[in-house]
């Protein structure tokens, strides 16, 4: 007998108490995707679809800052490019990784050398780089999270992992209020990285130390559309 068969047989024997006509799909899942209530109590456990406040973008900025990351909010591409340039200069970046598909209008000129990933950079080259500049697929306001999905401007996962400094830009229209909404907008078939603040550990006497293996410094630039700013009176 294969181990597969043995384990499945053991499971079926162990579940002798489950009625044969109870189907897996009919059993309850969380709302609202779940459909009607079934076998085990109510499908609607009544948890909220969102805990986001009235200003999700402000909430995102505040909660990212809570993780001791730097947050800059700007309106429009020109100001974003200037803010990015200032941040890179202040950091003293010399070798900057920029993933394929990063929007050209956001890429500032500067004394740094831009490393693309075509052909793919070696691990050593990534390790030696001072920083990486990327976009994000999504921001999640309630948890202060950025999600990278390896799409344009984000590149393969190693790019935003090995350099010690990560400057990530996220557009206001990509801000989701809370996790349920965010997960609904993401494609699980892509490799996803949820980033909430810089790499951190509390393993030594519970004292928080930023950065053990991932980027030790996270700087987030949140970009508002110019016309959106006009609408909201900024």
């Amino acid at each position, binding site marked *: 007998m294969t181990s597969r068969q043995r384990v499945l047989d*053991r499971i079926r024997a162990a579940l002798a108490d489950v009625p044969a006509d109870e189907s897996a799909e009919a059993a309850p899942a969380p709302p609202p995707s779940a459909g009607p209530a079934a076998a085990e109590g109510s499908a609607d456990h009544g948890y*909220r679809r969102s*805990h986001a406040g009235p200003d999700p973008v402000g909430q995102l900025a505040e909660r990212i800052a809570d993780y001791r990351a730097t947050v800059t909010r700007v309106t429009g591409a020109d100001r974003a490019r200037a803010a990015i340039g200032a941040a890179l200069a202040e950091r003293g970046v010399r070798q900057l990784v920029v993933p394929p598909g990063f929007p050209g209008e956001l890429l500032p000129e500067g004394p740094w050398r831009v490393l693309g990933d075509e052909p793919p950079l070696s691990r050593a080259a990534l390790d030696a780089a001072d920083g990486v500049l990327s976009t994000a697929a999504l921001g999640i306001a309630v948890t202060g999270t950025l999600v990278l999905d390896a799409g344009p401007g984000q590149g393969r*996962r*190693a790019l935003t992992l090995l350099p010690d400094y990560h400057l990530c830009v996220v557009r206001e229209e990509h801000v989701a209020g809370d996790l349920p909404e965010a997960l609904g907008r993401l494609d699980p078939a892509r490799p996803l990285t*949820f980033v909430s603040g810089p790499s951190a550990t509390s393993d030594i006497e519970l004292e928080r130390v930023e950065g*053990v293996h*991932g980027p030790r410094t996270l700087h987030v630039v949140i970009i508002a559309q110019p016309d959106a700013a006009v609408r909201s009176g900024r």
Partner: protein
Amino acid sequence: MTAPQEPDRSNVVWLGAPAFPEAARAALADSQLRANLKHATGTIRDKRLAVTAELDDWEQLREAGAALKRRTLRHLDHYLVQLEESVTRAGGVVHWAADAAEANAIVTGLVREAGAREVVKVKSMATQEIGLNEALAEAGIAAYETDLAELIVQLGKDRPSHILVPAIHRNRAQIRDIFQREMGRWGRPAPDGLTDDPRALAEAARLHLREKFLRATVAVSGANFAVAATGTVGVVESEGNGRMCLTLPQTLITVMGIEKVLPAWSDLEVFLQLLPRSSTGERMNPYTSTWTGTTPGDGPQNFHLVLLDNGRTATLADTVGRQALACIRCSACLNVCPVYERTGGHAYGSVYPGPIGAVLTPQLVGVEHAASLPFASTLCGACYDACPVKINIPEVLAHLRARVVEAERARHRLPTAEALAMTAAAGVLDSPRRLAAAQKAAALGSRLLARDGRIGALPGPLHGWTDSRDLPQPPAETFRAWWRRNREQP
């Protein structure tokens, strides 16, 4: 029939570890340990309370998490087969392991196939449970733990003592000494003049491990969840060592307990709210990675998922005890437990310490192999209140106590006083005073058989079993009595 009668699940409990009361007595005498633990559990507890209070529907989220786990476990075969299909479709390879030995053999074979002599590892309870590092070492393969705490434990030739912060029993000076002494033997040595500042220690670990990440070709991880419908596997972590392991090597081998499967992608909306807030007391942990099979040009190009039973199906068969399989390993129950706070994790003699360890360990290995653990609790109920998936740990503890007693009775072929008392009325368990009386009577009853703390040769058909070994005597003192006596002491 080639199936082994007795599955090899031995590594869940540490062979030779003393029973809980004995180990706990030693731990209680260690004032440094108690101070570290008190500080750690208190701090994490407060953080957790603050972030769970932020969500006014926390109770509903717990209820949803519990219901989802219940439903999944009731149809585990269905979801595992579905997961296998989805992972395979996405380019992964699924393996099934009935026990620890089999899982270790599968992983060892895969590492060899990849032509590697070393692997980098993401912190994982499942691989600790099966003793994977030791099995790999025997096969001549070095396994490097890359989580800072696990590195401290590994370099210190030590055991983890907490699910979330495994090296919490060590202070900074001890960690500096371990780094100075051991790092050089494994790779890049600790820098000269290393201080005991946590920043300096973290930096030393970063440099030491980075060279391993950069050359690694094979990584081994656990999984916090896997989604049946999509084949997506996920790991939740803080340091980025997980991302390194999941991203840089060519081959990724993930060992996952079969209970970690979830039906749908959208189910993560519940668990990604419950887990970080219950575990580290953060709104979200720094990094969560998910992957679905392999992605050309990004990350490992070979992905293997090992589905591990190792006592889980035996646990599933117990309709009361099976709820322990809902555990998402957040460690909240450890931090609220008055017993854990004073004894620390080592006293439990298992990779799973604390309240969840007291119910999970005996079920995974068989109650007769961890008989003192269901008694390692005051049944105060704090763990139940803290648990994000509402595992009724006190209920399972009481249930397992009865099973321990039954197992003892079966072994002795004698109705002990305790067995009679325990099986007569489950209601006794709800009354601390009556329970204490029953246990006292039981201790007296079973001690009649023992000499010098061991039960020697048994009469009749049990004789063969005791020819080559002595039965441990049931504890002279119940855990509760021991606890009362010891906690009163300064």
